[in-house]
């Protein structure tokens, strides 16, 4: 019998195998913050046979779009998504990072036009995966970043 760290949900999205400690960033990427009225539960640093430790996020009553979910791969390339319908897993899939991400990462270059305060500019990064490591390059200044979790805006 499997143990559930948090209670079962009837319908919704379970994001499993999140890199330990990054569940709050996952919520941030999904745009779920203080003001939300969704029922959300989050478990951090639970033990996992595959990953040692992992985080889990469960969002009730909502199927999160694949486009949004793909952004999770930027910081947790091993995350799995479980879409739950009527308490059962209807679909399970791994996240794949998008090739281009807009408005998720913040360029660390202070002289980059994407950081200009009053300009109507969107952050745009081109994502690359090499040897299981995710990196991204700024569309404007060309700066390459790794450890993307440090640059979630």
């Amino acid at each position, binding site marked *: 019998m499997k143990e559930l760290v948090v209670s079962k949900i009837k319908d919704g999205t379970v994001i499993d195998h999140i890199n330990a400690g990054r569940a709050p960033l996952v919520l941030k990427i999904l745009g779920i913050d203080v003001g939300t009225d969704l029922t959300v539960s989050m478990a951090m640093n639970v033990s996992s046979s595959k990953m040692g430790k992992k985080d889990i996020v469960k969002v009730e009553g909502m199927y999160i779009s694949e486009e949004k979910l793909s952004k999770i791969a930027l910081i947790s390339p091993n995350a799995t998504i479980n879409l739950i319908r009527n308490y059962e897993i209807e679909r399970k899939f791994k996240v794949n990072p998008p090739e281009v991400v807009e408005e998720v990462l913040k360029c660390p270059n202070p002289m980059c*036009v*994407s950081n200009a305060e009053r*300009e109507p500019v969107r952050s745009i990064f081109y994502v690359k995966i090499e040897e299981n490591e995710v990196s991204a390059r700024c569309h404007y200044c060309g700066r390459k970043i790794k450890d993307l979790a440090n640059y979630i805006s």
Partner: protein
Amino acid sequence: MRHLISINDLDREDITYILKRAEEFEDVARGERSLKILEGKILGNLFFEPSTRTRMSFEVAMKRLGGDVVNMTAQEASSIAKGETLADTVRVVSGYCDAIVIRHPLEGAARFAAENSSVPVINAGDGAGQHPTQTLLDLYTIKKECGKLDGITIALVGDLKYSRTIHSLIKALTLFETKIYLVSPDALALPDEMLEEIGGDVSRARLDEVIEEVDVLYVTRIQKERFPDEEEYRKVSGSYRITLNTIKNAKDSMIIMHPLPRVDEVDPAVDKTRHAKYFQQAFYGVPVRMAILSEVML
């Protein structure tokens, strides 16, 4: 619509094409032949940072081809900057003219300008970022003065760490079969990550070891601001200064280039030698910019 934002947007074929076009404009650039193909066209110069050479050579290129130029100077820009966004300035100015040349202190500003412009945008320097027309005129100079790009050996001398001119030039040179030597003080060496990223035949060297072999000596300015104290700066810059003695073992056909302005990286005594090509290089900025202007506007 075609913009020219980064040398990285161009492949070998694009570069070869622009250089070939530039050659066709050389006599027009010298005023020996009249060719008014840009008559009725207006270029908008948006210089948010001061520039003499780049701005003037764009202006000359445009006028030699029968076109006209409107200028916004750095001083005007600074007063605009307080009230208006770059995006708005570009939207307005692109309504006034047929192409825009922009220089701006922020990296990526030219790309952002292009995204907000209804006419082609040419990057004339975006901070520490890109300056593609400089790279193209450098390549043109090598091609004209050495007769080729494939097969040349070039030593890049001076500030290889901060110089955007050098960074763009290296990338472009590796599109051709070139051998590149990097000659700099340790403190101003090409960053390792950049060295890793560029493919091709690139290695660090001392000038006296390679001077007999090189076809091109490309010298850049070592800036005082990069050093903790005056004495250190003097010592380093002194040892990277090009004098008659430094080049005594060079090939007859070896050329010396410099993006200018120079301070004292090249001894004026060198100017009189057949090697000195930096003023010629500055002139070549005109036909190269003619080729670019006609390409984006016609």
